[in-house]
């Protein structure tokens, strides 16, 4: 990672600042004793992971469905989430058929026809992308692309930080 030419208004930069701040807070809150219980260790892991996911969700410029879903998931206690999810499933999996013979048409038929084998993979994708259950096909694909870009940035920065810490 090029440290000298980092654009201060880039996603990477915004995420790094937030995440570092969160890490500092996490560590200040509760210094780990050498005799930490497994539960405490897990809690710290959990806090760091949630801080990373939250920092990234906050750092995106345009309000994305996936980022809003991430924040919602991390801030809403699970019993309220279960109740809410009943209302969120709007008309999904709109089906269209097309008779275009070109390859592009074939791509679309594959994706949009319910009977095709892509149903399972689309469902999988919906589960992997935060908020995916409620998106229509177009948004799902678009959000997935953005989500992947942000995830790779997140991994890159976390790895850099971990490497820097382990040089100690």
């Amino acid at each position, binding site marked *: 990672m090029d440290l000298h030419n980092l654009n201060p208004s880039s996603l990477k930069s915004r995420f790094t*600042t937030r995440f570092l701040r969160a890490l500092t807070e996490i560590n200040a809150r509760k210094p780990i004793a050498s005799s930490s219980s497994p539960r405490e260790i897990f809690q710290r892991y959990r806090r760091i992971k949630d801080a990373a996911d939250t920092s990234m969700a906050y750092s995106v410029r345009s309000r994305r469905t996936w980022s809003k879903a991430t924040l919602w998931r991390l801030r809403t206690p699970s019993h309220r989430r279960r109740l809410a999810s009943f209302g969120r499933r709007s008309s999904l999996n709109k089906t269209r058929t097309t008779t275009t013979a070109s390859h592009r048409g074939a791509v679309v038929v594959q994706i949009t026809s319910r009977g095709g084998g892509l149903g399972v*993979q689309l469902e999988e994708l919906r589960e992997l992308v935060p908020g995916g259950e409620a998106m229509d096909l177009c948004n799902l694909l*678009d959000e997935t692309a953005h989500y992947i870009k942000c995830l790779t940035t997140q991994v890159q920065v976390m790895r850099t930080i971990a490497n820097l810490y382990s040089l100690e």
Partner: protein
Amino acid sequence: MSSRRSGSRQSGASRITDDQIADLVSKLQRLIPELRGRRSDKVNASKVLQETCNYIRNLHREVEGLSDRLSQLLASTDTDNEQAAILRSLLM
């Protein structure tokens, strides 16, 4: 609750064009390291979606592994505030 079974009629509410969908699929394809080198007309949508799911799962696993590593690293260093400040100044 609205019905999820829309059958195979034209969905009037959706203004998605075939081109848009095909474009989005190829955009995804370009993002995934596994598929980046291939010519787009040789990779079908099923493969793109499958590799997308795999890639996202891998990324999730990396985040978990790095969180784990960071939690151990934080535990073993004493001067964290100082280090965080140094890191931040390096990265700005």
